[in-house]
């Protein structure tokens, strides 16, 4: 990703210009990519109790559900965000994301919050950013989010909402 955003302005395939490959273009992930990203970014399939078989069955069920809502035609690669409300609803309120932000033992959020190596809130915040977006938060993001979280009295809920926001962010869904 180029830092020189100004220079890249003439290279925008989204408005029909020929690609100059000056930077990586935003594109949406495929359904399976998003699904895998969610599973990995969240330990969602490990949260709660259950045998290996239960976990696998749950994974299959989630994947089927994903394919149904995101459209799994064989004739073209299903890509995300064809812009439908059920898709957004699924990421906002669906079971997979609920599991991901659940505070049950073994869930990703709990493992980050209870990790003794992460000694400060900013270290925990960084861990969540790396897990979901694959990058550290910028200084301004860090301070902005810190301010917001301080407004929420229930600390655990604040962490849940932050991780929810990261998983629902366009940056998570869009491969860039």
């Amino acid at each position, binding site marked *: 990703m180029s830092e020189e955003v100004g220079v890249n302005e003439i290279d925008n395939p989204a408005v029909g210009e020929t690609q100059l490959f000056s930077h990586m273009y935003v594109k949406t992930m495929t359904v399976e990519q998003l699904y895998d990203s969610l599973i990995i970014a969240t330990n969602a399939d490990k949260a709660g109790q259950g045998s290996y078989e239960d976990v696998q069955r749950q994974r299959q069920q989630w994947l089927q559900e994903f394919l149904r809502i995101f459209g799994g035609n064989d004739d073209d690669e299903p890509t995300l965000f064809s812009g439908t*409300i059920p898709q957004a609803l699924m990421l906002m*309120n669906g079971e997979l994301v609920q599991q991901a932000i659940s505070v049950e033992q073994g869930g990703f959020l709990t493992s980050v919050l209870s990790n003794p190596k992460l000694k400060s809130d900013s270290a925990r915040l960084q861990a969540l950013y790396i897990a979901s977006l694959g990058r550290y938060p910028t200084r301004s*993001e860090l301070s902005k989010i810190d301010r917001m979280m301080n407004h929420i009295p229930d600390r655990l809920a604040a962490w849940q*909402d932050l991780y929810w926001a990261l998983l629902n962010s366009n940056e998570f869904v869009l491969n860039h």
Partner: protein
Amino acid sequence: MSLLIPRGMSRRHFLSHLSAGGAATLGATHFLSHLEAHAEEVQKSQKACILVWLGGGAPTIDMWDLKPGSKNGGNFKPISTAGDMQICEHLPEVAKVMGDMSIVRSMSTREADHNRGTYFMHTGYVPNPTVVHPTFGSVVSYELGTKRKELQIPAFVSVGGGGMDPGFLGMAHAPFVVDANGRIQNAESSDPNRLNQRLTMLEAVEDSFIKSNRGDVGKAHKEVYQKARDLMTSDQMAAFRVEQETPEMRKSYGDTQFGNMLIMARRLVEKGVPFIEVRNPNGWDLHNDVFDSLSRTNLPNLDKGLAGLVNDLKARGMLENTVVVCMGEFGRTPRINQNVGRDHWAQTWSVFIGGGGLKGGRAIGATDADGLRIESDAYLPSDLWATVASALRIQLETVHTSKNGRPMKIANGGTPIKDLIG
């Protein structure tokens, strides 16, 4: 509230009302509530189609095109109706509304497999491995839904599941599925404050990404989330709450699950949703004991539901703008099998259709005395959907382009059924 300028009303016309009515002398609230009431009227007068789906394939020879005196006739007697045709004795309430509705008795659709027939009847196209054709609800969503800016509910709602695939029109026009009780998956937010808190957090997280000038995809993502949030908190969601209706109203539809699904459909039309598919909860794949199943459950349910819907639409002045179609994927064999059932049959069968300005009270086309051959013009699903398209004022010349660049005529280039559009 939204200030709608209804179609069919020009700016000039609107302004002349303002001056003639002396809007300046009216209180602002009075004026606004008048507009709101007017907006509701406009939504009611928008075109819509309700498809009542009889999954499994209904024995229309026992419902709409009886053959008394034939060895294929079965157990039921025909009764007279308010229209110019006779129908089954187990549909007495529907018989009373047949002055407004018609029966097409010469459907001949050649696909007698459940999946292929379902596809053919929904799309107008025979299944083809190189392309997925859009189900007609998706076509209506694409053609009419995109123009209804005030509509927060998706433009194609499937009550009870099913409804098929949007095909090359894209997932934005896929059926929006609600269960028979009006529940939408993932749409219930237990705590609106929590949702707001999360969305504020989301805005903070996303801000920098959108500002980093990465094209329109980020913006589109944001818009979808706004739409989803709007839907979750929309007043229009009340359309799914059939329990808000009076017990008398529910009784007039039969007070059954099917009846409630049809009430939901009418409530959605009132909000401006242009296409609703309601899946009748009874099984129609009657290979065994066809007469018992029909007379005990299927027909009494259908009778009260369909008649309730037509009566209600008419009483509200909505019938002239709302097409009602009732069919399944095919008919059933005229021959009665050894299990007193009827098997799959696509060569000669009937569809119930009316409203939306279509001619009522007519039986269109005819089959022979044993129900085996068509003795008139035969019709295909493409003709049926072309008829619906013309009632909904969708241009029949419209051509969509499939993903691989093939031009696709709307309703597969079918011809509207002349006797229905007059």
